[in-house]
């Protein structure tokens, strides 16, 4: 299935929203308006848009601590998502989850996860549900290069393949697990690991929306056919630290400037679609500005959003002692 003009507009809009969202969270976190700690996915938007556009409503997604872009690309409400990051009671989880546990089951989002390696098994479970339901739904597990080293991830590979479940494992490798480079921490390759469990694996350029999207589309087609799981290794990079405030002394001098200049997935997308005469620069600029404005509006609203109160502390529990 080829992407039509509307799809391309949607892809760019999604990437633009995700980028502005992260820039806004960076700025406001730095100014002390957002509690806790946040892990930003700026630079990785092609993964969010490319993967989610290959999925549909019946599908499930378990994502990582770096999941804002995935939430946006999955169509979660922008305001409720922003409010959740601020810990407001109007947040999608009532302010009880926050950045690291934001979820929207109505959109098939099984949540960001604070536990590295937890997503694989959750997606296996969602795959079991999809198979039992018989709706040809697909479950996607995101994990990073860090999560790729957890034993739980390997257990999930094995379970998904012995049961031929509709699961797609996506290793979104941004080069660092916290401060530890994947070149140091990962033995062998992600694709070899997939082969080790008897499933197909493919490595793709995470700066290229089209490469990510095509690889995901192929994997989705395969798993919907009932051929069992597969793995996609997306090589990408983040513009910020592991968390906001990380001094990133482990990164090379000029590394991020180089990424922003030469490897920016929004720029690369623009060059491709404008070069091919599919969309105009003006159209793309307009979308970029529209999304900037939408995120700014959501940010301001989040600043004024209602805060959770004492009454909220002990709801959604059983047994009060």
């Amino acid at each position, binding site marked *: 299935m080829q992407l039509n003009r509307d799809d391309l507009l949607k892809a760019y809009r999604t990437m633009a929203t995700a980028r502005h969202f992260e820039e806004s969270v960076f700025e406001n976190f730095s100014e002390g308006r957002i509690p806790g700690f946040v892990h930003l996915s700026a630079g990785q938007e092609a993964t969010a848009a490319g993967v989610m556009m290959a999925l549909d409503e019946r599908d499930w997604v378990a994502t990582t601590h770096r999941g804002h872009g995935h939430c946006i690309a999955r169509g979660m409400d922008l305001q409720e998502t922003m409010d959740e990051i601020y810990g407001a009671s109007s947040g999608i989880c009532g302010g009880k989850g926050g950045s690291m546990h934001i979820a929207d089951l*109505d959109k098939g989002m099984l949540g960001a*996860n604070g*536990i590295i390696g937890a997503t694989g*098994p959750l997606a296996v479970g969602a795959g079991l549900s999809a198979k039992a339901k018989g709706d040809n739904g697909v479950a996607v597990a995101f994990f990073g290069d860090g999560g790729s080293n957890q034993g739980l991830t390997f257990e999930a590979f094995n379970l998904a393949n012995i049961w031929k479940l509709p699961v797609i494992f996506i290793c979104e490798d941004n080069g660092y697990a916290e401060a530890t480079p994947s070149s140091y921490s990962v033995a062998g390759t992600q694709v070899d690991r997939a082969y080790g469990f008897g499933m197909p694996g493919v490595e793709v350029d995470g700066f290229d929306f089209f490469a990510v999207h095509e690889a995901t589309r192929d994997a989705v087609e395969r798993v919907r056919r009932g051929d069992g799981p597969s793995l996609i290794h997306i090589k990408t990079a983040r513009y910020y630290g592991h968390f906001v405030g990380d001094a990133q002394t482990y990164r090379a001098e000029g590394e991020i400037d180089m990424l922003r200049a030469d490897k920016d997935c929004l720029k690369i997308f623009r060059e491709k679609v404008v070069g091919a005469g599919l969309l105009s620069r003006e159209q793309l600029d307009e979308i970029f500005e529209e999304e900037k404005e939408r995120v700014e509006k959501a940010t301001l609203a989040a600043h004024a959003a209602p805060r959770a109160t004492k009454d909220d502390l002990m709801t959604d529990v059983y047994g009060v002692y």
Partner: protein
Amino acid sequence: MPKKSYRNAINEAMAGEMRRDSSVILMGEDVSGGTGAPGEDDAWGGVLGVTKGLYSEFGASRVLDTPISEGGFVGAAAGAAITGLRPIVEVMFVDFLGVCLDGIYNQAGKFRYMFGGKAETPLVVRTMYGAGLRAASQHSQTLYSIFAHVPGVKVVVPSNPYDAKGLLIQAIRDNDPVVFFEHKMMYDDEGDVPDESYTIPFGEANVLRDGEDVTIVAIGKMVHLANKAAENLAKDGISCTVIDLRTLSPLDEETILEEVETTGRLVVVDESHPRCSVAADVSSIVAEKAFKSLKAGIGKVTAPHCPVPFSPELEDLYIPKIADVEAAVRRTMA
């Protein structure tokens, strides 16, 4: 009423619920016991035969033999539970939960609260606990207090076949994660168990015996020690109330406090270690909320604070005995 074993009562609860609700699935190591092997239809049904016959009735799509990867399949069960299935997961021995706690306490146990009340996680983790099988340190522990500590996880410890069936049906129908503890030495215990389906609500302790002098609170297999001790003590004119907690989370504080207010004395019997145990927890609740009713220091009967030993002589010393309960009761009367 027909007599059935604890094992059969548990099997019957699962079979009945699987017939009633197609979203109930069972998974675990050897729950079929030989899927893919030549004799799969007549295979084990679990190492101690608790799931026998379910595979032949419900097939491989609903009774899933798992590889030995508890972390993976418990996490998968959590994922299945929030996406529409009602998985029963058998983790063969509670000791093995050491490699799969994340799925229970960080995932399943957190979803409801962390997602703002929008998630339901109808997951049951069935697991064997307890000493007595000469199974030594890594197959004999009584680890329910770890789970009772975590809000969001319900903890059930049936002491007899009737309760095992009713509490397990309740657990399967419950929309929160439940860890269901089965004592490995009780599978052959027999008791009255109706053929039909019934539930026992969580958070309601069972007062087995009404007394005036001492309240004995017991859990699981220890309930039988408490009962026996109470019988023996009655001969000496010491009258005991015996409470079977049945569920540790939610905990029926009200019944404990009411009974202690009547008797003024408390002995808690728990097969677990003394530190940070349910025995310690119940004692602290009573000390805090019924202090003025107490006529004596609280007695605790627990296993010692050491791993479960292998040597039969040592294991026998390790396991709490009826005489220990009697002695503890007498101390509160002294």
